[in-house]
C-alpha cells in the first residue's frame, strides 16, 4: 500500500475500518474548527484531543514519531517567525537590539505553531489510515464521482513507486552515455532532460496500462461493484466525535476569552 510509505497501520481499529468518506468529513470538521481562529487555547485543545485519540488510529506510533519528527520542528520555526514579525504589543520579554519579543508576539507565535500541528496531525492520520482502493470505491459509490476518472487515477497512482526507481535508472543511463555532470547550467539542463525522459516513460507505461484496462472491458456502461462501500454506526460515531471535538475547542477558546476569529483580524 502507498500509505505504508508514511506510517503503517498496525491494528485494525474501529477508526481504521470507518468509511473513507466519513473520515474525510471528520477531518474537514476538525480542520474548520482549527482554522477559524488563531489563538493558543483553541489550537492547544484541538492538538491535545487529537494526541489523546492517537491510540485509536491503529498507527505504529514509534514510526510516526521517527518519520515525522520534522513536523514539530517546522511548526516551531513557523511560530518563531511569527513571534519575530507580529505586532510587538504587551510586556517586553526579550529586548536584545533587533531581537524584540513581547508577551503578545510570543503568544501569537505559540498559537501559529500549535495550529500548524493541530492541522497537520489529523491530515497525517487521514492519509495513513485511508486505503486508496476503499477511498476510490467510496468516492464513486457515495459521492457519485465519475468511475472512469477515479479508477484511472487510482491505477495511475500505483505507478508512482515505479517512477522513483525509473528516475534513478535514467540518471545512471545518462551518465553511461557520457553526458552527466558539468557546470550548473549543464546540470540544470540535464535535470530537465531527465524529467522529460521520465515523462516519456510515464506516458508509455500509462498507455500500456490504459490498454490493459481497456482490454479487460474498462469503460463499459453497466459496471458492477465487487466491493460495496457502506456506512456503519461507527461512521456516525466518528463524525459526532469530530463535531464534539470541534465544539469543545471553540467553546474553550470563547470561554477563555482568547477566541480570535480569523476573518476579523486587522479590522
Amino acid at each position: 500500500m502507498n500509505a505504508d510509505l508514511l506510517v503503517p497501520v498496525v491494528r485494525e481499529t474501529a477508526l481504521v475500518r470507518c468509511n473513507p468518506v466519513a473520515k474525510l468529513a471528520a477531518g474537514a470538521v476538525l480542520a474548520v474548527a482549527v482554522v477559524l481562529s488563531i489563538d493558543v487555547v483553541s489550537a492547544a485543545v484541538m492538538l491535545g484531543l487529537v494526541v489523546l485519540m492517537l491510540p485509536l488510529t491503529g498507527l505504529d506510533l514509534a514510526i510516526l514519531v521517527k518519520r515525522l519528527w520534522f513536523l514539530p520542528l517546522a511548526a516551531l520555526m513557523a511560530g518563531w517567525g511569527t513571534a519575530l514579525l507580529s505586532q510587538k504589543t504587551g510586556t517586553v520579554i526579550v529586548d536584545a537590539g533587533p531581537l524584540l519579543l513581547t508577551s503578545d508576539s510570543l503568544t501569537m507565535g505559540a498559537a501559529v505553531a500549535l495550529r500548524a500541528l493541530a492541522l497537520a496531525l489529523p491530515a497525517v492520520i487521514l492519509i495513513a489510515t485511508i486505503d486508496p482502493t476503499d477511498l476510490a470505491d467510496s468516492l464513486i459509490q457515495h459521492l457519485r464521482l465519475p468511475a472512469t476518472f477515479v479508477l484511472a487515477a487510482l491505477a495511475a497512482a500505483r505507478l508512482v513507486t515505479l517512477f522513483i526507481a525509473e528516475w534513478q535508472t535514467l540518471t545512471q543511463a545518462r551518465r553511461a552515455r557520457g553526458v552527466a555532470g558539468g557546470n550548473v547550467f549543464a546540470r540544470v539542463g540535464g535535470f530537465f532532460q531527465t524529467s522529460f525522459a521520465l515523462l516519456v516513460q510515464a506516458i508509455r507505461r500509462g498507455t500500456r496500462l490504459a490498454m490493459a484496462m481497456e482490454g479487460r472491458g474498462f469503460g463499459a456502461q453497466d459496471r458492477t461493484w465487487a466491493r460495496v462501500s457502506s456506512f456503519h454506526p461507527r461512521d456516525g460515531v466518528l463524525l459526532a466525535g469530530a463535531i464534539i471535538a470541534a465544539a469543545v475547542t471553540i467553546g474553550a477558546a470563547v470561554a477563555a476569552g482568547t477566541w480570535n476569529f480569523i476573518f476579523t483580524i486587522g479590522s
Partner: protein
Amino acid sequence: MAAATGGVDVLARGFGWRHSGRKRAAVSDIDLSIEAGERVLLLGSSGAGKSTLLHAIAGVLPSESGYRTGELLVDGRPPDPTSGTTGLVLQDPDAQVVLARLGDDVCFGMENTGVDPAAMPARAREALATVGLDLPWDHPTSALSGGQKQRLALAGVLAMTPGLMVLDEPTANIDPAAVPEVCQAVLGAQAASGATLLIVEHRVDIWAEHVDRIIVLGETGVVADGSPAAVLHDPELRGNLTAAGVWLPGAALPQPRTRQSAGAVLLEADGLAVARARRGPVAVSDLSIDLAEGQALALVGHNGAGKSTTALTLGGLLPARAGRVRATPRLLDLGHGAPRHSDPHRWPAADLVARIGTVFQEPEHQFLTTTVADELRLGPRQAGCTPAETEARVAELLERLRLTRLAGAHPHTLSGGEKRRLSVACMMATRPPVLIIDEPTFGQDANTWRELAALSCELLDAGTALLTVSHDAEFLQAIAAERMLFGRGQAVRA
C-alpha cells in the same frame, strides 16, 4: 466458473491498419478465419504487425489513432472490448496490474463487464486456482514477481469467461524460469473455458506442441497458415521463418567462439560490496572480479541476486558500498581524457564513456536525442573525437548494424530489435575497452539474437572486455563466457 462458454470465431477480410503519422501500414491485406475454440500461434518478423493485429482483434486500437481498411469481425461483430467477449494479456507485467489487492484485481474485468457481484468471489477464486496463484485475497499485487503478475493478468481475463483470449508475448518480459508456469496457466485456462486462443510469441518451442494452428504474418499479409507440423516442417517456410527471426524448435545455434587467452587486466575489484541505494540493504558482498582484454564474463543467477547492481557498480554508475573498483593504468591510458582517479565512479561522464560502455536492459532509458544518427554521434562527441572521426564511426555503425535506412528516424519509433541494436551501437561508438551489457538478448527475435552474438564475438576477438548479465545460456555458450554465479548475497566463479 459458469459453464464453459466456449469460443468465438474471428474473421478478417482485407484488414489493414496504418497508424496516424506513418507512411507504411502496420498491417495490410489480412485475410484469415479462426474457428471458435481454436488455439492459434501467430508468428512473423518484428515489424510485421503482429501486435497491431492482436490489438485490433482485442478492440483496443483507438479508432482515432489510425486508418483502418477492410473488415475485422469477432463473433460476427466489430471488436468491442467492453462486451467482455475478448480478454487481452500484454507483454509488460508491471503495466497490467490495476489494483493493489490480488482479489480486487481479478474482479476488475468482471466489474467492468457487469457481472453480478454475488458471483464474483467464486469465479475469481476459480480463475486464480486455474492459473496456480494460491495466495490470499488481500495479497499485495506489488509483491508479486513478473511471472506471477502475468498469471494474475491471465486470471483477471479468465474470470471474465471471454470467448477469445488474446496474448501478446506473454512470456517475453519474465524470468525464463517462470515461463513454464505461465504456459501451463494459459493452457489450463483455455482447456477450462474452451475459449479461442490467439498468441503472439517469438519462441515457438514454448507453444508449438500445444496449438492447433500456426499463422505466419509477413510484409504482404498472411504468408503461411496451417498445423504446427505442416508449417514447421515445410523446408521453404522454415527458411522464411528463420529469415523472419522466428525461433524455431531445433534450429541450429551458431558455432561457439573459441576462447582466446585473455590480455591485460583492465578492471579489477576486491572485497567489493554493492547496493542499489546509499543506505539500503547490501545486494552482494565480498566480490572479487578481474576483467581482462578479450575476456567474456557473465554474471548469472536468479532474479534479485544482485547481478545488475554489480554490473552498475563495475560500470562506474553506482558507488561501491565497501571495497573498491579499480581501473588498471592500461584502462586509464586508453581513450580520450585522463581521469585522475582509478575508481570509475569518480570519473567525469565523458571519461567514463570513452572507457566503459554500459548498455541498459531497457534501450529507451538511454536515448537522449531525436534521430538515430544523432544518437550515435553523441558518445564520440562527448568523448572528444574530431567531427571527421565521429562521422566515420557513425557511418560504419549504421552499416554494421543495418540501421542506415533508419538514420533519420526518431529512436523511440523503432521496433524492439532495432532499439536494442541501436542501444548497443551507441555504446560501441566510443570504442570503450570495457563493454557491460545487461540482458542483451531479453525478448529479442532470433535474427537480433544471432546478430548480437556475432557482434559480441567480434568485439571480444578485437580485444574488448565484455561483461554481461544474462539468463540466456545459449547466448553465453555462443560467446564462450566465463560464468560467475550469484546467490545468497555472494558470487562465485562457476
